[in-house]
């Protein structure tokens, strides 16, 4: 945007009145294209053909664990039809005793029928690593650790969704 200083009465001080000085455009929020406004980022603005699709892979297992016992499961998933994947989120549900919506340990409202001792004496960790995927682009490693610190054996059912981006 070209402008001059006529309104300030300063143009007479310019060396060449035919090529008035320019002053920088004042940048304010109106000058930004709305696509850079975070509130304007929506599904409609995404080019769905150019972004990677998020996929997921299910990991399910059942475990019967004795008292005072901690089970650690290191799992490595190989994507044979993909050369490169990138891990995203690991969503995990741990059911105790049986698999239904009143036995989800890591929930607020869905653990109604789990015994108090089982709830209090269970520890659960689920995490994905990054190094294995860096070294082998079509592999994703995940670790699950279930601890039964209670006074009785328990049945645990693990239902996880490993989400990833298929890069190529």
């Amino acid at each position, binding site marked *: 945007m070209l402008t001059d200083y006529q309104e300030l009465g300063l143009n007479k001080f310019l060396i060449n009145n035919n090529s008035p000085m320019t002053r920088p455009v004042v940048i304010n929020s109106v000058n930004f294209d709305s696509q850079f406004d975070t509130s304007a980022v929506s599904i409609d603005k995404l080019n769905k053909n150019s972004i990677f699709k998020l996929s997921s892979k299910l*990991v*399910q*297992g*059942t*475990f*019967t*664990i*004795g*008292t*005072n*016992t*901690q*089970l*650690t*499961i*290191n*799992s*490595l*998933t*190989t994507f044979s039809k993909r050369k490169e994947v990138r891990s995203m989120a690991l969503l995990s549900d741990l059911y105790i005793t049986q698999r239904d919506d009143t036995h989800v340990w890591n929930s607020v409202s869905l653990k109604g029928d789990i015994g108090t001792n089982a709830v209090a004496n269970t520890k659960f960790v689920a995490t994905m690593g990054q190094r294995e995927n860096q070294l082998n682009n079509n592999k994703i490693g995940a670790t699950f650790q279930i601890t039964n610190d209670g006074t*009785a*054996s328990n*049945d645990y059912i693990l239902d996880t969704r490993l989400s990833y981006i298929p890069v190529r």
Partner: protein
Amino acid sequence: MRKAYFLGEKFLALVDLPDDKEINVSIRHNGELVGEPNELPVDKETADFIKENKNEVVLDITNNKIIKLTKEEKSPNI
């Protein structure tokens, strides 16, 4: 993959996971890492038996078989 893990003859855990993954299982009992637990592949029938009688099973180490304890033999620590 369906395996039962024992510390000596004492039942620790039954693991049932899909076969299409590389799995490494490690176990701690009373806070101590169980270096080489007795690991026994089990069929579905045996796995169901363990689930039903998990407080009353031990491993017959000599014959590598899972046996059910009587009430008198039942270990209080399992």
